[in-house]
Protein backbone atom coordinates (compact mmCIF):
# COMPACT_ATOMS: atom_id res chain seq x y z
CA UNK A 1 0.00 0.00 0.00
CA UNK A 2 1.25 3.42 -0.88
CA UNK A 3 2.30 5.84 1.77
CA UNK A 4 -0.16 8.71 1.91
CA UNK A 5 1.44 11.96 2.94
CA UNK A 6 -0.50 14.79 1.32
CA UNK A 7 -3.42 16.42 3.13
CA UNK A 8 -6.69 14.90 2.18
CA UNK A 9 -9.34 17.04 0.59
CA UNK A 10 -13.08 17.05 0.33
CA UNK A 11 -12.73 15.74 -3.19
CA UNK A 12 -10.71 12.79 -1.93
CA UNK A 13 -13.37 12.06 0.56
CA UNK A 14 -16.15 12.27 -2.02
CA UNK A 15 -14.24 10.02 -4.40
CA UNK A 16 -13.69 7.22 -1.98
CA UNK A 17 -15.07 7.80 1.49
CA UNK A 18 -14.02 4.39 2.69
CA UNK A 19 -10.40 5.40 2.36
CA UNK A 20 -10.74 8.16 4.84
CA UNK A 21 -13.11 7.66 7.67
CA UNK A 22 -14.40 4.50 9.11
CA UNK A 23 -15.93 4.00 12.50
CA UNK A 24 -14.93 1.57 15.16
CA UNK A 25 -17.12 0.79 18.13
CA UNK A 26 -14.89 1.52 21.12
CA UNK A 27 -16.66 2.74 24.23
CA UNK A 28 -19.44 0.48 25.41
CA UNK A 29 -22.48 1.80 27.22
CA UNK A 30 -21.21 1.39 30.83
CA UNK A 31 -17.98 3.21 29.94
CA UNK A 32 -19.87 6.14 28.49
CA UNK A 33 -22.43 6.32 31.28
CA UNK A 34 -19.83 6.14 34.05
CA UNK A 35 -17.74 8.75 32.23
CA UNK A 36 -20.48 11.36 32.31
CA UNK A 37 -21.69 10.44 35.78
CA UNK A 38 -18.12 10.77 36.99
CA UNK A 39 -17.69 14.08 35.19
CA UNK A 40 -20.84 15.57 36.69
CA UNK A 41 -20.20 14.22 40.19
CA UNK A 42 -16.59 15.42 40.20
CA UNK A 43 -17.78 18.88 39.18
CA UNK A 44 -20.31 18.95 42.00
CA UNK A 45 -17.80 17.48 44.45
CA UNK A 46 -15.08 19.98 43.60
CA UNK A 47 -17.30 23.05 43.77
CA UNK A 48 -19.01 22.07 47.03
CA UNK A 49 -15.71 20.83 48.41
CA UNK A 50 -14.09 24.21 47.81
CA UNK A 51 -16.88 25.84 49.77
CA UNK A 52 -16.58 23.32 52.60
CA UNK A 53 -12.83 23.92 52.79
CA UNK A 54 -13.17 27.68 52.64
CA UNK A 55 -16.71 29.06 52.95
CA UNK A 56 -16.29 32.24 50.95
CA UNK A 57 -19.86 33.48 51.10
CA UNK A 58 -22.16 33.67 54.09
CA UNK A 59 -25.89 34.25 54.24
CA UNK A 60 -27.37 37.08 56.27
CA UNK A 61 -29.99 36.77 58.95
CA UNK A 62 -30.91 34.25 61.56
CA UNK A 63 -29.04 30.96 61.65
CA UNK A 64 -32.21 28.86 61.65
CA UNK A 65 -33.36 30.42 58.39
CA UNK A 66 -30.21 29.38 56.56
CA UNK A 67 -28.62 26.08 55.67
CA UNK A 68 -25.88 27.05 53.24
CA UNK A 69 -23.07 24.88 54.58
CA UNK A 70 -25.59 22.17 55.36
CA UNK A 71 -26.69 21.96 51.73
CA UNK A 72 -23.14 22.12 50.46
CA UNK A 73 -22.27 19.15 52.62
CA UNK A 74 -25.41 17.22 51.68
CA UNK A 75 -24.70 17.74 47.97
CA UNK A 76 -21.07 16.84 48.52
CA UNK A 77 -21.95 13.60 50.29
CA UNK A 78 -24.60 12.64 47.74
CA UNK A 79 -22.27 13.35 44.83
CA UNK A 80 -19.56 11.42 46.64
CA UNK A 81 -21.72 8.32 46.87
CA UNK A 82 -22.72 8.68 43.23
CA UNK A 83 -19.05 8.95 42.28
CA UNK A 84 -18.23 5.88 44.35
CA UNK A 85 -20.92 3.84 42.61
CA UNK A 86 -19.69 5.10 39.23
CA UNK A 87 -16.11 4.17 40.16
CA UNK A 88 -17.15 0.67 41.19
CA UNK A 89 -19.21 0.19 38.05
CA UNK A 90 -16.30 1.24 35.88
CA UNK A 91 -13.97 -1.01 37.86
CA UNK A 92 -16.32 -3.92 37.21
CA UNK A 93 -16.45 -3.07 33.53
CA UNK A 94 -12.66 -3.16 33.42
CA UNK A 95 -13.04 -6.93 33.73
CA UNK A 96 -16.36 -7.40 31.95
CA UNK A 97 -15.99 -4.98 29.04
CA UNK A 98 -14.30 -5.16 25.65
CA UNK A 99 -10.57 -4.77 25.19
CA UNK A 100 -10.79 -0.98 25.00
CA UNK A 101 -12.27 -0.90 28.50
CA UNK A 102 -8.84 -2.08 29.63
CA UNK A 103 -6.81 0.22 27.41
CA UNK A 104 -6.34 2.82 30.14
CA UNK A 105 -4.40 0.48 32.35
CA UNK A 106 -0.66 1.19 32.47
CA UNK A 107 0.69 -2.10 31.10
CA UNK A 108 4.17 -1.34 32.27
CA UNK A 109 5.28 -4.94 31.89
CA UNK A 110 4.93 -4.64 28.13
CA UNK A 111 7.69 -3.00 26.14
CA UNK A 112 5.15 -1.83 23.54
CA UNK A 113 3.33 0.18 26.16
CA UNK A 114 6.52 2.03 27.12
CA UNK A 115 7.34 2.72 23.47
CA UNK A 116 3.87 4.09 22.96
CA UNK A 117 4.18 6.25 26.08
CA UNK A 118 7.37 8.02 24.94
CA UNK A 119 6.20 8.15 21.37
CA UNK A 120 2.90 9.80 22.30
CA UNK A 121 4.61 12.32 24.58
CA UNK A 122 6.99 13.21 21.79
CA UNK A 123 4.17 13.56 19.27
CA UNK A 124 2.29 15.91 21.56
CA UNK A 125 5.38 18.05 22.09
CA UNK A 126 6.19 18.12 18.38
CA UNK A 127 2.57 19.06 17.66
CA UNK A 128 2.49 16.29 15.08
CA UNK A 129 -0.55 14.32 14.14
CA UNK A 130 1.17 11.10 15.02
CA UNK A 131 -0.17 7.59 15.04
CA UNK A 132 -3.76 6.97 15.97
CA UNK A 133 -5.26 4.91 18.73
CA UNK A 134 -8.77 3.66 19.09
CA UNK A 135 -8.59 3.07 22.82
CA UNK A 136 -6.44 5.13 25.14
CA UNK A 137 -2.94 5.96 24.12
CA UNK A 138 -0.39 4.95 26.76
CA UNK A 139 0.05 8.50 28.05
CA UNK A 140 -3.67 9.18 28.23
CA UNK A 141 -4.32 5.86 29.89
CA UNK A 142 -1.63 6.48 32.47
CA UNK A 143 -2.96 9.91 33.40
CA UNK A 144 -6.50 8.53 33.49
CA UNK A 145 -5.43 5.74 35.81
CA UNK A 146 -3.63 8.15 38.12
CA UNK A 147 -6.12 11.00 37.94
CA UNK A 148 -9.40 9.11 38.15
CA UNK A 149 -8.79 5.56 39.32
CA UNK A 150 -6.05 6.05 41.94
CA UNK A 151 -6.95 9.55 43.11
CA UNK A 152 -10.62 8.63 42.89
CA UNK A 153 -10.10 5.63 45.15
CA UNK A 154 -8.13 7.79 47.59
CA UNK A 155 -10.88 10.41 47.60
CA UNK A 156 -13.60 7.80 48.07
CA UNK A 157 -11.80 6.13 50.98
CA UNK A 158 -10.75 9.30 52.79
CA UNK A 159 -14.11 10.87 52.02
CA UNK A 160 -16.03 7.96 53.50
CA UNK A 161 -13.74 7.94 56.53
CA UNK A 162 -14.32 11.64 57.14
CA UNK A 163 -18.03 11.21 56.48
CA UNK A 164 -18.17 8.40 59.04
CA UNK A 165 -17.31 10.87 61.79
CA UNK A 166 -20.90 12.08 61.74
CA UNK A 167 -22.08 8.75 63.14
CA UNK A 168 -19.35 7.28 65.35
CA UNK A 169 -21.30 4.08 66.00
CA UNK A 170 -22.48 3.60 62.43
CA UNK A 171 -21.46 1.01 59.84
CA UNK A 172 -19.40 3.55 57.88
CA UNK A 173 -17.25 4.11 60.92
CA UNK A 174 -16.72 0.41 61.37
CA UNK A 175 -15.75 0.03 57.70
CA UNK A 176 -13.68 3.14 57.07
CA UNK A 177 -13.08 4.86 60.42
CA UNK A 178 -9.74 3.11 60.92
CA UNK A 179 -8.31 5.15 58.06
CA UNK A 180 -8.33 8.34 60.10
CA UNK A 181 -5.79 7.33 62.78
CA UNK A 182 -3.92 5.35 60.11
CA UNK A 183 -3.34 8.48 58.02
CA UNK A 184 -2.48 10.75 60.94
CA UNK A 185 -5.83 11.84 62.32
CA UNK A 186 -8.95 13.42 60.83
CA UNK A 187 -7.45 16.88 60.65
CA UNK A 188 -4.62 15.81 58.38
CA UNK A 189 -6.89 13.55 56.36
CA UNK A 190 -9.05 16.62 55.65
CA UNK A 191 -5.98 18.37 54.26
CA UNK A 192 -4.95 15.39 52.15
CA UNK A 193 -8.50 15.07 50.84
CA UNK A 194 -8.45 18.69 49.71
CA UNK A 195 -4.98 18.42 48.21
CA UNK A 196 -5.99 15.32 46.25
CA UNK A 197 -9.10 17.17 45.04
CA UNK A 198 -6.84 19.79 43.47
CA UNK A 199 -4.83 17.05 41.81
CA UNK A 200 -8.05 15.66 40.35
CA UNK A 201 -8.89 19.14 39.10
CA UNK A 202 -5.43 19.32 37.54
CA UNK A 203 -6.21 16.08 35.74
CA UNK A 204 -9.52 17.54 34.55
CA UNK A 205 -7.75 20.58 33.05
CA UNK A 206 -5.25 18.40 31.21
CA UNK A 207 -7.95 15.91 30.18
CA UNK A 208 -10.31 18.51 28.73
CA UNK A 209 -7.52 20.28 26.91
CA UNK A 210 -5.95 17.19 25.42
CA UNK A 211 -9.35 15.87 24.35
CA UNK A 212 -10.04 19.07 22.42
CA UNK A 213 -6.54 19.05 20.99
CA UNK A 214 -6.69 15.39 20.01
CA UNK A 215 -10.14 15.74 18.55
CA UNK A 216 -9.15 18.64 16.32
CA UNK A 217 -5.75 17.18 15.52
CA UNK A 218 -6.79 13.66 14.68
CA UNK A 219 -10.38 14.29 13.59
CA UNK A 220 -11.08 11.00 15.26
CA UNK A 221 -14.38 11.85 16.94
CA UNK A 222 -12.86 11.72 20.38
CA UNK A 223 -15.50 13.92 21.98
CA UNK A 224 -18.55 12.55 20.19
CA UNK A 225 -17.12 9.10 20.80
CA UNK A 226 -17.91 9.41 24.46
CA UNK A 227 -21.55 9.92 23.48
CA UNK A 228 -21.95 7.55 20.54
CA UNK A 229 -19.27 5.06 21.47
CA UNK A 230 -17.71 5.25 17.98
CA UNK A 231 -14.33 6.63 17.11
CA UNK A 232 -13.00 7.24 13.62
CA UNK A 233 -9.81 6.42 11.86
CA UNK A 234 -8.56 6.70 8.34
CA UNK A 235 -7.55 3.91 6.13
CA UNK A 236 -3.82 3.60 6.52
CA UNK A 237 -3.76 4.75 10.11
CA UNK A 238 -1.50 2.60 12.06
CA UNK A 239 -3.68 1.47 14.87
CA UNK A 240 -1.45 1.72 17.85
CA UNK A 241 -3.36 -0.42 20.27
CA UNK A 242 -1.14 -3.39 19.47
CA UNK A 243 0.36 -3.43 22.96
CA UNK A 244 -3.15 -3.94 24.26
CA UNK A 245 -2.89 -7.63 23.49
Amino acid sequence: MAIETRPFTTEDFARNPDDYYRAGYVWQVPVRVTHWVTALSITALFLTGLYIANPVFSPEGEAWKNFTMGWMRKIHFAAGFIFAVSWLTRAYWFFAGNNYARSGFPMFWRAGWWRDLWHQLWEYLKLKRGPIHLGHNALGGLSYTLGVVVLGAFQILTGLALFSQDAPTGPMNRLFGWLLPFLGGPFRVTSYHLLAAWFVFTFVILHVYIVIYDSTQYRNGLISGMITGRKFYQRGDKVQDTWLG
Partner: protein
Amino acid sequence: MPSESMNIRASTLAGWPMTKSLSGPTTYEVLRDHGVDRRTFLKFATGITATMGLEATFVPQVVHALESKPRIPVLWMEGLSCTCCTESFIRSSHPLVGDVILNMLSLDYHPTIQVAAGFQAEEIVDKLIHDKPGQYVLAVEGNAPLADGGVYCLEGGRTFEDRLREAASKARFVVAWGNCASAGCVQAAAPNPTQATPIGKMISDKPVINVSGCPPIPIVMTGILTYILTFDRLPELDRLGRPKMFYQHRIHDKCYRRAFFDAGQYVQSWDDEGARLGHCLYKMGCRGPTTYNYCSTFKWNDGVSWPVGSGHGCLGCSEPGFWDDGPFFQRLANIPQINIDSWPETVGKVVAGAAAIGAGAHAVSAIAKNAVKPTEKVPVESSSGVKGEE
Protein backbone atom coordinates in the same frame (compact mmCIF):
# COMPACT_ATOMS: atom_id res chain seq x y z
CA MET B 1 -29.11 5.10 74.49
CA PRO B 2 -26.49 3.58 72.21
CA SER B 3 -23.53 4.39 74.44
CA GLU B 4 -25.12 2.62 77.38
CA SER B 5 -25.87 -0.64 75.58
CA MET B 6 -22.38 -0.56 74.12
CA ASN B 7 -20.76 -0.19 77.50
CA ILE B 8 -22.73 -3.10 78.85
CA ARG B 9 -21.55 -5.29 76.00
CA ALA B 10 -17.89 -4.48 76.61
CA SER B 11 -15.82 -7.57 77.07
CA THR B 12 -14.47 -8.63 80.42
CA LEU B 13 -10.72 -8.93 80.59
CA ALA B 14 -8.81 -11.87 82.00
CA GLY B 15 -8.02 -11.47 85.67
CA TRP B 16 -11.20 -9.58 86.36
CA PRO B 17 -13.27 -8.76 88.35
CA MET B 18 -10.55 -6.72 89.94
CA THR B 19 -12.58 -5.39 92.84
CA LYS B 20 -12.54 -8.86 94.43
CA SER B 21 -8.86 -8.46 95.24
CA LEU B 22 -9.17 -5.00 96.79
CA SER B 23 -9.21 -4.30 100.49
CA GLY B 24 -9.78 -1.26 102.68
CA PRO B 25 -12.60 1.20 103.21
CA THR B 26 -15.20 1.86 100.53
CA THR B 27 -15.62 5.19 98.80
CA TYR B 28 -18.79 5.83 100.76
CA GLU B 29 -17.09 5.16 104.06
CA VAL B 30 -14.28 7.53 103.22
CA LEU B 31 -16.71 10.23 102.20
CA ARG B 32 -18.70 9.82 105.40
CA ASP B 33 -15.49 10.14 107.37
CA HIS B 34 -14.91 13.42 105.59
CA GLY B 35 -18.32 14.68 106.67
CA VAL B 36 -20.20 14.16 103.40
CA ASP B 37 -23.84 13.34 104.12
CA ARG B 38 -25.74 10.59 102.33
CA ARG B 39 -27.90 12.99 100.37
CA THR B 40 -24.82 14.67 98.85
CA PHE B 41 -23.32 11.27 98.17
CA LEU B 42 -26.43 10.21 96.26
CA LYS B 43 -26.34 13.43 94.26
CA PHE B 44 -22.75 12.67 93.34
CA ALA B 45 -23.63 9.11 92.35
CA THR B 46 -26.49 10.34 90.16
CA GLY B 47 -24.28 12.95 88.54
CA ILE B 48 -21.46 10.54 87.78
CA THR B 49 -23.95 8.05 86.32
CA ALA B 50 -25.20 10.69 83.91
CA THR B 51 -21.63 11.70 83.09
CA MET B 52 -20.81 8.14 82.10
CA GLY B 53 -23.71 8.23 79.64
CA LEU B 54 -25.77 5.74 81.61
CA GLU B 55 -29.46 6.15 82.21
CA ALA B 56 -31.09 6.77 85.58
CA THR B 57 -31.84 3.09 86.24
CA PHE B 58 -28.14 2.51 86.73
CA VAL B 59 -27.95 4.87 89.72
CA PRO B 60 -28.71 2.13 92.32
CA GLN B 61 -26.01 -0.06 90.81
CA VAL B 62 -23.47 2.77 90.98
CA VAL B 63 -24.49 3.64 94.54
CA HIS B 64 -24.18 0.01 95.56
CA ALA B 65 -20.73 -0.26 94.06
CA LEU B 66 -19.48 2.89 95.77
CA GLU B 67 -20.96 1.68 99.06
CA SER B 68 -19.76 -1.88 99.03
CA LYS B 69 -16.51 -2.05 97.10
CA PRO B 70 -13.16 -0.89 98.43
CA ARG B 71 -11.51 2.07 96.80
CA ILE B 72 -9.05 1.48 94.00
CA PRO B 73 -5.53 2.51 94.99
CA VAL B 74 -3.93 4.80 92.46
CA LEU B 75 -0.24 5.34 91.98
CA TRP B 76 0.25 8.66 90.27
CA MET B 77 3.52 9.22 88.45
CA GLU B 78 4.76 12.29 86.67
CA GLY B 79 7.17 12.14 83.80
CA LEU B 80 7.87 14.87 81.27
CA SER B 81 4.86 17.04 81.96
CA CYS B 82 3.84 20.55 82.83
CA THR B 83 1.61 19.41 85.73
CA CYS B 84 -1.39 21.00 84.02
CA CYS B 85 -3.19 17.67 84.34
CA THR B 86 -2.75 17.78 88.11
CA GLU B 87 -3.79 21.41 88.15
CA SER B 88 -6.95 20.50 86.30
CA PHE B 89 -7.42 17.51 88.56
CA ILE B 90 -7.20 19.34 91.90
CA ARG B 91 -9.04 22.45 90.83
CA SER B 92 -12.52 21.09 90.34
CA SER B 93 -14.36 24.13 91.61
CA HIS B 94 -17.22 22.02 92.88
CA PRO B 95 -15.96 21.05 96.34
CA LEU B 96 -17.68 17.69 96.40
CA VAL B 97 -16.35 16.58 93.04
CA GLY B 98 -12.85 17.58 94.09
CA ASP B 99 -13.26 15.83 97.39
CA VAL B 100 -14.60 12.72 95.78
CA ILE B 101 -11.85 12.61 93.21
CA LEU B 102 -9.14 12.95 95.83
CA ASN B 103 -10.79 10.59 98.27
CA MET B 104 -12.22 7.89 96.07
CA LEU B 105 -8.98 7.41 94.22
CA SER B 106 -7.02 6.51 97.34
CA LEU B 107 -4.10 8.44 95.93
CA ASP B 108 -1.25 6.77 97.69
CA TYR B 109 1.45 8.65 95.91
CA HIS B 110 1.24 11.89 93.99
CA PRO B 111 4.43 13.89 93.45
CA THR B 112 2.71 17.26 93.45
CA ILE B 113 0.27 17.03 96.32
CA GLN B 114 1.65 14.37 98.63
CA VAL B 115 2.80 15.38 102.10
CA ALA B 116 5.74 12.98 102.22
CA ALA B 117 9.01 13.88 100.56
CA GLY B 118 12.36 12.34 99.75
CA PHE B 119 13.05 8.78 100.83
CA GLN B 120 9.79 8.67 102.72
CA ALA B 121 7.86 9.33 99.50
CA GLU B 122 9.86 6.81 97.51
CA GLU B 123 9.14 4.24 100.21
CA ILE B 124 5.41 4.61 99.56
CA VAL B 125 5.91 3.69 95.94
CA ASP B 126 8.02 0.65 96.73
CA LYS B 127 5.54 -0.45 99.37
CA LEU B 128 2.60 -0.11 96.98
CA ILE B 129 4.35 -2.02 94.23
CA HIS B 130 5.41 -4.85 96.56
CA ASP B 131 2.40 -5.03 98.86
CA LYS B 132 -0.41 -4.58 96.37
CA PRO B 133 0.80 -6.09 93.11
CA GLY B 134 -1.97 -6.33 90.55
CA GLN B 135 -4.30 -4.17 92.62
CA TYR B 136 -3.34 -0.61 92.03
CA VAL B 137 -3.99 1.54 89.03
CA LEU B 138 -1.00 3.32 87.57
CA ALA B 139 -1.93 6.82 86.46
CA VAL B 140 0.80 8.44 84.42
CA GLU B 141 0.98 12.14 83.80
CA GLY B 142 3.51 13.09 81.17
CA ASN B 143 5.64 10.70 79.22
CA ALA B 144 9.11 9.22 79.19
CA PRO B 145 11.96 10.41 76.96
CA LEU B 146 13.71 7.35 75.61
CA ALA B 147 16.66 9.03 73.88
CA ASP B 148 20.13 8.56 75.39
CA GLY B 149 18.94 6.00 77.90
CA GLY B 150 16.16 8.17 79.21
CA VAL B 151 18.46 10.69 80.94
CA TYR B 152 16.21 13.64 80.09
CA CYS B 153 13.84 12.80 82.90
CA LEU B 154 15.26 11.63 86.21
CA GLU B 155 13.31 11.06 89.39
CA GLY B 156 14.83 9.92 92.67
CA GLY B 157 18.10 9.17 90.94
CA ARG B 158 16.55 6.84 88.37
CA THR B 159 15.27 7.44 84.91
CA PHE B 160 11.56 7.90 84.68
CA GLU B 161 11.44 5.23 82.00
CA ASP B 162 12.88 2.71 84.44
CA ARG B 163 10.50 3.68 87.23
CA LEU B 164 7.55 3.63 84.88
CA ARG B 165 8.29 0.16 83.59
CA GLU B 166 8.70 -1.17 87.11
CA ALA B 167 5.46 0.36 88.36
CA ALA B 168 3.56 -0.72 85.25
CA SER B 169 4.74 -4.31 85.51
CA LYS B 170 2.76 -4.79 88.73
CA ALA B 171 -0.19 -2.51 87.95
CA ARG B 172 -3.68 -3.78 87.15
CA PHE B 173 -4.01 -1.34 84.32
CA VAL B 174 -2.55 1.99 83.29
CA VAL B 175 -4.33 5.27 82.85
CA ALA B 176 -2.38 7.54 80.51
CA TRP B 177 -3.50 10.86 81.87
CA GLY B 178 -3.39 13.78 79.47
CA ASN B 179 -2.17 14.21 75.92
CA CYS B 180 1.49 13.81 77.01
CA ALA B 181 0.91 10.32 78.29
CA SER B 182 -1.57 9.24 75.64
CA ALA B 183 -0.17 10.87 72.51
CA GLY B 184 3.06 12.70 73.31
CA CYS B 185 1.81 16.31 73.30
CA VAL B 186 4.39 19.09 72.95
CA GLN B 187 7.38 17.02 74.04
CA ALA B 188 6.81 14.65 71.16
CA ALA B 189 6.18 17.42 68.62
CA ALA B 190 8.51 17.35 65.63
CA PRO B 191 11.44 16.89 65.71
CA ASN B 192 11.07 15.32 69.18
CA PRO B 193 14.74 15.52 70.22
CA THR B 194 14.33 13.60 73.48
CA GLN B 195 12.27 10.89 71.80
CA ALA B 196 9.37 11.44 74.18
CA THR B 197 7.11 8.40 73.83
CA PRO B 198 3.48 7.99 74.82
CA ILE B 199 2.77 5.37 77.49
CA GLY B 200 0.70 3.21 75.16
CA LYS B 201 3.73 2.72 72.93
CA MET B 202 5.97 1.70 75.84
CA ILE B 203 3.71 -0.64 77.77
CA SER B 204 2.18 -3.48 75.86
CA ASP B 205 1.41 -6.10 78.50
CA LYS B 206 -1.12 -4.01 80.43
CA PRO B 207 -4.32 -2.35 79.26
CA VAL B 208 -3.70 1.36 78.77
CA ILE B 209 -6.60 3.79 78.90
CA ASN B 210 -5.75 7.02 77.16
CA VAL B 211 -7.43 10.00 78.77
CA SER B 212 -6.39 12.60 76.27
CA GLY B 213 -6.64 16.35 76.51
CA CYS B 214 -4.32 19.14 77.55
CA PRO B 215 -5.40 18.89 80.29
CA PRO B 216 -8.22 16.33 80.39
CA ILE B 217 -11.47 17.02 82.17
CA PRO B 218 -11.20 15.86 85.82
CA ILE B 219 -14.59 14.15 85.84
CA VAL B 220 -13.30 11.63 83.33
CA MET B 221 -11.02 10.09 85.97
CA THR B 222 -13.90 9.78 88.41
CA GLY B 223 -16.06 8.38 85.65
CA ILE B 224 -13.56 5.69 84.65
CA LEU B 225 -12.94 4.52 88.21
CA THR B 226 -16.63 4.53 89.09
CA TYR B 227 -17.33 2.56 85.94
CA ILE B 228 -14.74 -0.04 86.88
CA LEU B 229 -16.03 -0.27 90.44
CA THR B 230 -19.59 -0.67 89.24
CA PHE B 231 -19.22 -3.06 86.32
CA ASP B 232 -15.89 -4.74 87.05
CA ARG B 233 -14.54 -4.22 83.59
CA LEU B 234 -12.70 -1.59 81.62
CA PRO B 235 -14.79 0.89 79.68
CA GLU B 236 -14.96 0.41 75.94
CA LEU B 237 -12.18 2.25 74.15
CA ASP B 238 -12.04 3.91 70.76
CA ARG B 239 -9.33 3.35 68.15
CA LEU B 240 -6.93 5.61 70.00
CA GLY B 241 -7.53 3.87 73.33
CA ARG B 242 -9.75 6.60 74.74
CA PRO B 243 -12.89 5.69 76.69
CA LYS B 244 -15.80 5.94 74.28
CA MET B 245 -18.17 7.30 76.86
CA PHE B 246 -16.18 10.53 76.91
CA TYR B 247 -14.36 10.59 73.58
CA GLN B 248 -16.86 9.15 71.14
CA HIS B 249 -18.27 12.38 69.79
CA ARG B 250 -16.65 15.33 68.16
CA ILE B 251 -16.59 18.72 69.82
CA HIS B 252 -18.26 19.92 66.62
CA ASP B 253 -21.26 17.59 66.92
CA LYS B 254 -22.27 18.87 70.33
CA CYS B 255 -21.09 22.43 69.91
CA TYR B 256 -23.65 25.11 70.72
CA ARG B 257 -22.37 27.11 67.71
CA ARG B 258 -23.12 24.25 65.32
CA ALA B 259 -26.24 25.98 63.98
CA PHE B 260 -24.05 28.77 62.63
CA PHE B 261 -21.79 26.22 60.97
CA ASP B 262 -24.68 24.62 59.12
CA ALA B 263 -26.10 28.00 58.23
CA GLY B 264 -22.78 29.06 56.75
CA GLN B 265 -22.24 31.96 59.16
CA TYR B 266 -18.67 32.29 60.32
CA VAL B 267 -16.39 34.57 62.24
CA GLN B 268 -14.24 36.04 59.47
CA SER B 269 -11.77 37.89 61.66
CA TRP B 270 -11.38 38.47 65.37
CA ASP B 271 -13.67 41.17 66.73
CA ASP B 272 -15.86 41.34 63.66
CA GLU B 273 -19.66 41.38 63.69
CA GLY B 274 -19.79 37.58 63.50
CA ALA B 275 -17.53 37.23 66.52
CA ARG B 276 -19.84 39.46 68.51
CA LEU B 277 -22.89 37.48 67.39
CA GLY B 278 -21.23 34.22 68.37
CA HIS B 279 -20.91 32.76 64.89
CA CYS B 280 -19.03 29.55 64.14
CA LEU B 281 -15.23 29.67 64.54
CA TYR B 282 -14.59 27.23 61.68
CA LYS B 283 -12.73 29.75 59.53
CA MET B 284 -10.64 30.88 62.49
CA GLY B 285 -9.06 27.46 62.65
CA CYS B 286 -11.35 25.79 65.18
CA ARG B 287 -10.41 22.11 65.42
CA GLY B 288 -13.83 21.11 66.72
CA PRO B 289 -14.77 19.20 63.53
CA THR B 290 -11.83 16.86 63.96
CA THR B 291 -11.48 16.69 67.74
CA TYR B 292 -12.98 14.06 69.99
CA ASN B 293 -13.48 15.25 73.54
CA TYR B 294 -16.02 15.97 76.22
CA CYS B 295 -15.65 19.77 76.45
CA SER B 296 -18.75 20.75 74.48
CA THR B 297 -20.85 18.45 76.68
CA PHE B 298 -19.41 19.00 80.14
CA LYS B 299 -17.56 22.29 79.67
CA TRP B 300 -14.87 23.39 82.10
CA ASN B 301 -14.77 24.65 85.68
CA ASP B 302 -18.10 23.04 86.44
CA GLY B 303 -19.89 24.36 83.42
CA VAL B 304 -18.66 27.95 83.62
CA SER B 305 -17.27 28.02 80.12
CA TRP B 306 -15.01 26.33 77.62
CA PRO B 307 -12.75 27.57 74.80
CA VAL B 308 -15.41 27.88 72.10
CA GLY B 309 -17.77 29.40 74.66
CA SER B 310 -15.15 32.10 75.22
CA GLY B 311 -14.92 32.87 71.52
CA HIS B 312 -11.72 30.97 70.84
CA GLY B 313 -11.50 28.00 68.53
CA CYS B 314 -10.75 24.51 69.78
CA LEU B 315 -7.06 23.61 69.52
CA GLY B 316 -7.72 19.89 69.21
CA CYS B 317 -5.75 19.13 72.37
CA SER B 318 -7.11 15.60 72.72
CA GLU B 319 -5.85 14.54 69.28
CA PRO B 320 -2.43 13.03 68.65
CA GLY B 321 0.09 15.37 67.11
CA PHE B 322 -2.02 18.47 67.51
CA TRP B 323 1.07 20.64 68.01
CA ASP B 324 2.29 19.66 64.57
CA ASP B 325 -1.04 20.49 62.96
CA GLY B 326 -0.57 24.21 63.27
CA PRO B 327 -0.90 27.12 62.88
CA PHE B 328 -3.83 27.03 65.27
CA PHE B 329 -5.69 29.92 63.70
CA GLN B 330 -5.66 28.47 60.23
CA ARG B 331 -8.40 26.26 58.90
CA LEU B 332 -6.25 23.60 57.25
CA ALA B 333 -2.96 22.03 58.16
CA ASN B 334 0.28 22.62 56.41
CA ILE B 335 1.45 19.60 54.54
CA PRO B 336 4.15 18.06 56.72
CA GLN B 337 5.61 15.85 54.01
CA ILE B 338 6.44 18.75 51.75
CA ASN B 339 7.79 20.61 54.77
CA ILE B 340 7.01 24.05 53.53
CA ASP B 341 4.37 26.37 54.88
CA SER B 342 1.77 25.51 52.33
CA TRP B 343 -1.90 25.07 52.60
CA PRO B 344 -3.30 22.24 50.55
CA GLU B 345 -5.22 24.84 48.60
CA THR B 346 -2.10 26.83 47.75
CA VAL B 347 -0.28 23.73 46.57
CA GLY B 348 -3.34 22.62 44.64
CA LYS B 349 -3.75 26.01 42.97
CA VAL B 350 -0.09 26.05 41.94
CA VAL B 351 -0.29 22.56 40.46
CA ALA B 352 -3.59 23.20 38.70
CA GLY B 353 -2.35 26.60 37.51
CA ALA B 354 0.83 25.06 36.11
CA ALA B 355 -1.27 22.48 34.26
CA ALA B 356 -3.52 25.20 32.86
CA ILE B 357 -0.53 27.28 31.75
CA GLY B 358 1.06 24.22 30.18
CA ALA B 359 -2.11 23.34 28.31
CA GLY B 360 -2.55 26.94 27.23
CA ALA B 361 1.02 27.18 25.99
CA HIS B 362 0.57 23.96 24.07
CA ALA B 363 -2.65 25.22 22.52
CA VAL B 364 -1.10 28.54 21.52
CA SER B 365 1.89 26.86 19.92
CA ALA B 366 -0.38 24.36 18.18
CA ILE B 367 -2.44 27.17 16.70
CA ALA B 368 0.68 29.17 15.87
CA LYS B 369 2.10 26.20 14.03
CA ASN B 370 -1.25 25.86 12.27
CA ALA B 371 -1.15 22.29 13.33
CA VAL B 372 -4.72 22.06 14.35
CA LYS B 373 -5.87 20.31 11.22
CA PRO B 374 -5.22 16.90 9.81
CA THR B 375 -2.44 17.64 7.35
CA GLU B 376 -0.17 14.70 7.70
CA LYS B 377 -0.42 11.01 7.67
CA VAL B 378 1.97 8.54 9.09
CA PRO B 379 3.48 5.80 6.96
CA VAL B 380 1.10 2.93 6.54
CA GLU B 381 2.27 -0.34 7.88
CA SER B 382 -0.96 -2.16 8.34
CA SER B 383 -4.54 -1.12 8.16
CA SER B 384 -5.83 -4.16 9.89
CA GLY B 385 -5.99 -4.87 13.57
CA VAL B 386 -8.93 -2.62 14.39
CA LYS B 387 -10.97 -4.38 16.96
CA GLY B 388 -14.57 -3.80 17.77
CA GLU B 389 -17.52 -3.63 15.44
CA GLU B 390 -16.23 -3.75 11.90
